[in-house]
């Protein structure tokens, strides 16, 4: 076994948790050791990496193979073939053979704003003068490399090598670096392709079966609908729905009897229901296949497939049209070989049968939300979609280039495709980069246009980054008010985390993978098809049977990836043998098989994107996992994959899971049990796994914590101080939680924690703790509790302009007396800020200057001024910071890039947000001197006082357990006490005993004395260590007030928002209050005087605005008066006038002058 430092060694170590090599192993207690073994090979972010590897190693070659020939229309003799495609290792873009090192590390890409990409080379064969020319290693394009994938330089690097590359060994990988930003392609959830889904429409009481056919060429959806007792087929390519019998007739000369048999079998109920459909065909006058094809052909949309080869005659007979549509467009994934339409007829008949069955028994409709009916699309698949599109475009543009060359009447040279290949290949590079950069996935041949596929990897905390890698985003409607897709599905047990989903509009649509979930990659179908026949007797290919035999009771149709393939009389034996072969390792472990009694069918699935997870196999009421297996694992002599072929564990996908009886614990095993769970806590994901005792909490609290854990400030990665991110938060003294879970160890949260163990007393104190506010101990803050650092990036790029001018860095400006102006106090002689200097608001950090002349050509007399304009980057935040780093380098475009990182150290202040791991957030309400705080008889003073009112309604019992367990392990000095795994029996009694042994009350309460009076508190106070996270929301970043300040140009009203030093809006509701109260002078002040009141001149004669006491319309000053009105109102009037809407202002005195009255 190759020793890879992935941090799991400690967990596999025989001495782990105080266990010795000689200690007895119990499969019941120690079977969790399978988990680290599993995570070594699969799980968490491995599915991203597996998928990418599959794309780079297999899929890429397949795509090129499918599009490998280019033939010229002009020059008959010329042809070109791509024979192979390979992806290299990541290199710098400015590759050159002269340089000794062209390989690039991810860290360099992040810092220099480059793209982490590898060159792709192709081998080609082409003809020149009737000779075959073979050219190898022609650079085609550059493809972004996923971190830690097979092509990445971090793949199988040891910790020491990682350190040299400035990379964190705990970083999950699985993302891309495009232009210096880390981009994740989120897992996309979709309804499975090439599977029939039967649905019932509640309103019309119609039943429909639909299938989304997806092949490399096209994607289309076919419906078979039961409407008013008649069954029709609908498809995008068909102008109108076609009676199903006509379709079946068109598919190869079956008699009416044969059609009836194929659809209904011997069942009289289905026969009766289906009979009426024959009338439809008769009504349309369709009796023969020829007539049926004609009928369909005339209803095919003209110009059907866009990329029809243009050497074929554009006018085709309706029969040809119909044949083409049936063969290539409708249900395209069932391929037609040699004009044998029978398999397709069987397929359509199956859909019809499913519709009939569902109309008889409404229970037989499919559930769209069933996880087994879903497929997850990963980075590799999405990239392959995109690459295929780009490659096809590349081929056609290469062909265009070729034709252009051959069109020349007198050529001087022979055609050399090498240059054009590299030239046109740049579009592939650009296309890939742009898609990942922007997240807009545009695949022309599928008419696919998806936005928001990629996201910037959140580096707020380690857990935020990890959580992003396991996130699944749904393609479904976000706005529709259907609860189905959002609800918790029973079939997501163990596959998708039950707690980790956002609140609000995306609730239930964005999900997360559970700890042991794996997503399958594609397995070759052909090999599995061969196994179908060799796995046991009594299996025969479906082609040989008629409907009578297929639907005979006891006959089971074997479907491979949803398509009927073979027939058997012994489905159970078949499935059993098939599984046996799989457990022996002859069949790929990710191939699943399951029986369906309702439809008399066996389903074998080999496709990609299925969700699966491992289980321990149980045979004859006994777990196949024996202590010796675990011993081998501990000694490092066995791996998870070896258990897979030894029949100890196996992967089941959601569909196959339905056929099993899984025992949760070893004690629950009965004779009927088929599988055993590895660990119950794996139904939660990596983020929910941080919560201790989650099974004692009210479920929404766990969900809240999943959202908040991602906002907690802590250690980001081991290389956090080498990174220059736009915003980076780190905790000064992060601590490993006192109470941890096995998940915490597995995801290494204990090595990169985000929080501190605070001694918490649950009591009321001072009244500054209502509504979840916390009381903090000032001495604790002095000593470093909750102290965090905030790093901020300021970057400037020195551009070059087409006229040869370029940006530059200027020097410090001086006052008349020779001293440096205050604004430039932080600058060094090089025009950049000094590292370590305290920088205040308004001071310059990068004194960049741009040339005023950017457009002149510089040729002859066309020269602009030589002056430069100041374009410096200034520090704009009210609170000062220190310059932490100054970074100068070059980008890929060879322009200089300067990054300045500032650092602030912040101690907790009033209003900063904290949270425990149980969805209990609170802000600091007051910070109290240590001597005023309550203390125990041993002198222990709490760091935080939490109001007990936070408990009854929230029901976070897990928090109480965390406190008690933590306290017991603290007083006893045994950190292995502090385990709060989900679904582990809670150790409360044991902990109570430990506390009593150490002179504490068993229930965690202590006798505390008031620090103010010196009297004991009448009640005993529950106290102990609770892990508290400091969240990123801090008062300093939000505090805002304004007296006078900037105004918007257009309306002259105060600007909006803190960043623009805006005012606080007195909105409609506030206005309503003031009106209701009658505070007219206050209203006047808020809405006019303090806002946009303006003096305007109004002519009372014409009602229009005048100017300087003179009315331009009436040419007089006689009737012009002055009034104050909001500038916005004046603007409205003028805008209306400009749109030819006349506005006249009529003024009258509210309080008429007595003389005029």
């Amino acid at each position: 076994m190759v020793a890879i430092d992935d941090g799991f060694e400690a967990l596999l170590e025989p001495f782990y948790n105080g266990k010795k090599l000689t200690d007895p192993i119990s499969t019941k207690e120690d079977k969790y050791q399978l988990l680290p073994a599993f995570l070594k090979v699969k799980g968490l972010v491995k599915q991203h990496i597996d998928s990418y590897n599959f794309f780079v190693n297999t899929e890429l070659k397949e795509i090129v193979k499918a599009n490998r020939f280019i033939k010229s229309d002009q020059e008959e003799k010329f042809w070109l073939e791509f024979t192979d495609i390979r992806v290299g290792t990541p290199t710098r873009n400015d590759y050159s053979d002269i340089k000794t090192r062209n390989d690039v590390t991810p860290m360099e890409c992040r810092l220099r704003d480059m793209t982490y990409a590898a060159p792709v080379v192709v081998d080609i064969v082409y003809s020149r003068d009737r000779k075959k020319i073979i050219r190898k290693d022609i650079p085609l394009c550059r493809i972004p490399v996923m971190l830690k994938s097979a092509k990445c330089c971090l793949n199988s690097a040891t910790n020491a090598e990682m350190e040299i590359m400035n990379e964190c060994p705990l970083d999950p990988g699985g993302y891309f670096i495009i232009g210096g930003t880390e981009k994740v392609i989120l897992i996309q959830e979709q309804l499975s392709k090439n599977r029939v889904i039967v649905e019932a429409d509640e309103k019309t009481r119609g039943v429909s079966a639909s299938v989304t056919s997806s092949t490399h060429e096209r994607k289309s959806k076919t419906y078979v609908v039961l409407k008013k007792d008649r069954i029709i087929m609908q498809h995008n390519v068909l102008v109108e729905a076609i009676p199903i019998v006509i379709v079946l007739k068109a598919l190869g000369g079956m008699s009416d009897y044969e059609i009836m048999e194929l659809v209904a079998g011997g069942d009289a109920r289905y026969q009766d229901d289906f009979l009426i459909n024959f009338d439809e065909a008769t009504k349309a006058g369709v009796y023969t296949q020829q007539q049926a094809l004609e009928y369909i052909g005339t209803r095919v949309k003209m110009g059907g497939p866009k990329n029809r080869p243009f050497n074929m005659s554009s006018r085709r007979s309706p029969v040809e049209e119909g044949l083409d549509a049936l063969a290539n467009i409708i249900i395209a994934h069932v391929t037609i070989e040699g004009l044998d339409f029978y398999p397709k007829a069987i397929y359509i008949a199956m859909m019809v049968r499913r519709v009939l069955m569902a109309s008889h028994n409404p229970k037989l409709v499919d559930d769209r939300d069933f996880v087994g009916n879903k497929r997850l699309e990963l980075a590799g698949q999405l990239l392959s979609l995109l690459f295929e599109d780009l490659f096809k475009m590349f081929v056609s543009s290469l062909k265009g280039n070729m034709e252009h060359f051959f069109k020349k009447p007198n050529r001087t040279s022979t055609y050399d495709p090498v240059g054009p290949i590299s030239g046109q290949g740049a579009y592939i590079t650009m296309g890939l980069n742009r898609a990942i950069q922007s997240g807009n996935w545009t695949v022309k041949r599928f008419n696919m246009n998806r936005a928001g596929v990629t996201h910037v990897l959140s580096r707020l905390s380690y857990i935020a980054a990890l959580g992003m890698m396991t996130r699944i985003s749904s393609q479904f409607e976000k706005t529709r008010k259907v609860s189905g897709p959002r609800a918790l599905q029973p079939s997501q047990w163990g596959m998708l985390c039950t707690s980790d989903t956002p609140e609000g509009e995306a609730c239930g649509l964005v999900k997360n993978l559970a700890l042991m979930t794996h997503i399958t990659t594609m397995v070759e179908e052909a090999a599995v098809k061969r196994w179908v026949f060799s796995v046991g007797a009594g299996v025969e290919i479906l082609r040989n049977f008629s409907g009578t035999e297929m639907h005979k009771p006891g006959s089971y149709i074997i479907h491979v990836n949803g398509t009927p393939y073979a027939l058997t009389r012994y489905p159970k034996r078949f499935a059993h043998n098939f599984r046996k072969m799989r457990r022996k390792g002859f069949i790929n472990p990710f191939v699943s098989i399951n029986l369906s009694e309702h439809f008399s069918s066996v389903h074998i699935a080999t496709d990609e994107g299925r969700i699966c997870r491992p289980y321990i196999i149980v045979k004859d009421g006994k777990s196949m996992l024996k202590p010796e297996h675990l011993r081998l694992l501990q000694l490092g002599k066995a791996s998870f994959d070896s258990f897979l072929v030894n029949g100890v564990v196996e992967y089941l996908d959601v569909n196959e899971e339905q056929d099993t009886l899984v025992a949760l614990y070893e004690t629950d095993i009965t004779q009927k049990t088929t599988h055993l769970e590895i660990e119950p806590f794996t139904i939660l994901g990596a983020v929910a796994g941080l919560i201790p005792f989650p099974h004692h909490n009210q479920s929404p609290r766990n969900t809240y914590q999943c959202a908040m854990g991602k906002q907690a400030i802590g250690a980001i990665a081991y290389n956090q101080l080498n990174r220059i991110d736009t915003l980076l938060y780190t905790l000064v003294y992060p601590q490993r939680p006192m109470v941890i879970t096995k998940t915490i160890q597995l995801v290494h949260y204990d090595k990169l924690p985000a929080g501190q163990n605070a001694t918490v007393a649950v009591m009321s104190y001072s009244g500054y703790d209502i509504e979840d506010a916390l009381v903090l101990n000032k001495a604790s803050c002095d000593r470093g509790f909750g102290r965090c650092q905030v790093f901020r990036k300021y970057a400037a790029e020195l551009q070059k302009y087409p006229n040869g001018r370029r940006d530059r860095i200027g020097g410090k400006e001086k006052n008349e007396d020779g001293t440096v102006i205050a604004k430039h106090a932080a600058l060094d002689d090089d025009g950049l800020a000094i590292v370590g200097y305290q920088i205040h608001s308004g001071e310059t950090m990068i004194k960049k200057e741009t040339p005023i002349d950017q457009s002149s050509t510089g040729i002859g007399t066309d020269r602009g001024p030589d002056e430069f304009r100041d374009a410096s980057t200034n520090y704009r935040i009210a609170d000062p910071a220190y310059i932490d780093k100054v970074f100068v380098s070059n980008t890929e475009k060879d322009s200089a890039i300067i990054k300045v990182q500032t650092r602030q150290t912040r101690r907790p202040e009033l209003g900063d947000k904290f949270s425990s791991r149980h969805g209990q957030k609170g802000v600091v309400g007051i910070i109290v001197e240590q001597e005023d705080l309550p203390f125990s008889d041993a002198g222990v003073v709490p760091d935080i006082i939490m109001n007990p009112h936070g408990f009854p309604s929230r029901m976070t019992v897990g928090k109480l357990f965390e406190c008690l367990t933590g306290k017991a392990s603290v007083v006893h000095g045994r950190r292995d006490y502090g385990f709060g795994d989900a679904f582990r029996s809670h150790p409360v009694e044991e902990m109570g005993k430990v506390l009593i042994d150490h002179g504490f009350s068993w229930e965690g309460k202590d006798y505390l004395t008031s620090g103010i009076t010196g009297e004991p508190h009448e009640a005993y106070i529950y106290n102990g260590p609770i892990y508290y996270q400091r969240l990123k929301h801090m008062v300093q970043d939000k505090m805002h007030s304004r007296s006078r300040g900037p105004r918007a140009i257009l309306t002259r009203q105060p600007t909006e928002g803190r960043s623009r030093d805006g005012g606080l809006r007195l909105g409609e509701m506030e206005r309503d209050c003031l009106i209701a109260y009658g505070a007219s002078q206050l209203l006047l002040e808020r809405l006019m005087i303090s806002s946009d009141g303006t003096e305007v001149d109004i002519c009372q004669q014409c009602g229009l605005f005048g100017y300087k006491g003179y009315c331009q319309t009436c040419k007089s000053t006689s009737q012009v008066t002055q009034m104050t009105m909001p500038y916005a109102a004046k603007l409205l009037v003028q805008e209306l006038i400009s749109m030819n809407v006349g506005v006249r202002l009529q003024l009258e005195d509210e309080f008429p002058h007595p003389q005029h009255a």
Partner: protein
Amino acid sequence: MDYDPMAMDDVESLGPVVKISQADSVRVKFELSNVEMPFANSLRRVMLAEIPTIAIDLVQIEENSSVLADEFIAHRLGLVPLHAEGIESLLYSRDCDCDEYCEHCSVKLSLHAKCTGDENMQVVARDMIPVGDRINQVLGSPVITDSEGQGPLLLKLRPGQEIKLTCIAKKGIAKEHAKWAPTSAIGYEYDPHNKLHHMDMWYETDAKTEWPPSEYADWEEPPAEGEPFDFDAVPDRFYFNVETAGNLPPDVIVNEGIKVLQQKLAGLIHELAEGEGEANGYDGPRSPEYNGGGEGWQDQGYTTPYGGGNQSSYGGAGGTTPYGTTTPYGAGQNSW
């Protein structure tokens, strides 16, 4: 209202009594009797927060190529306990005649470490060397109690990294910052048998088994079976457990605590007496600033110009208003 003058006389005639049960270099346990509870608690509070000690307050960093940020190291240095013997001869910086600091009001320590080997190097408190004149030979030296004589770990250096800095240790009290705290914890309890019923001993089945007895339970008579509850009883025996952070010996802490408490009371009496002599005869409530008495009146010397509690550590100096600075050039509101 059963006031018994005889009993009170007895107490007053005896005065506070201290009985020490255990004392070593880190902690002293004693019983303080014949005092009232507020007095005992005052002593505790003063020992916790108002005994002057010495701690690093200013750090001048010349070279720092370690991974830790300057203010990170400065914070760690501040928390290192320094010997405070003879602190009474050291002046508060604010009372000193010097401009910033001098040997009368501060102790200078220098730290210079460079990792020249191949292994990571640990920089410990022992590496801080006091420089310049000191009031005595121990004041300001780092407290080292571990068996290897290393003292607290300050930071680690990788090969080639260097740290060079000068620390200025000043006199201060824990009210201002916890680094000046002489104690790490003060235990304080009374009435181990809960005879006064100051608390409600909650229990599930049996209080005796569920509540382990205090170590002072033997010192007092347990309540006799069926003893009537004495409503008038007040606590008068307090059990202290003073544990030092290392900068002062525990007995000194107690003595100093009493002294500081005395001074505070003396100050109060002095101020009250001064008020009597005032001419205009007005003795109602008045503003603390009245007659310019702002300083001597309320400021008992436990504030420094450094600033109080909740300010961010780099000093909110400069008086930057939250707006004004966000406009690009500050509209002349900033003072440069």
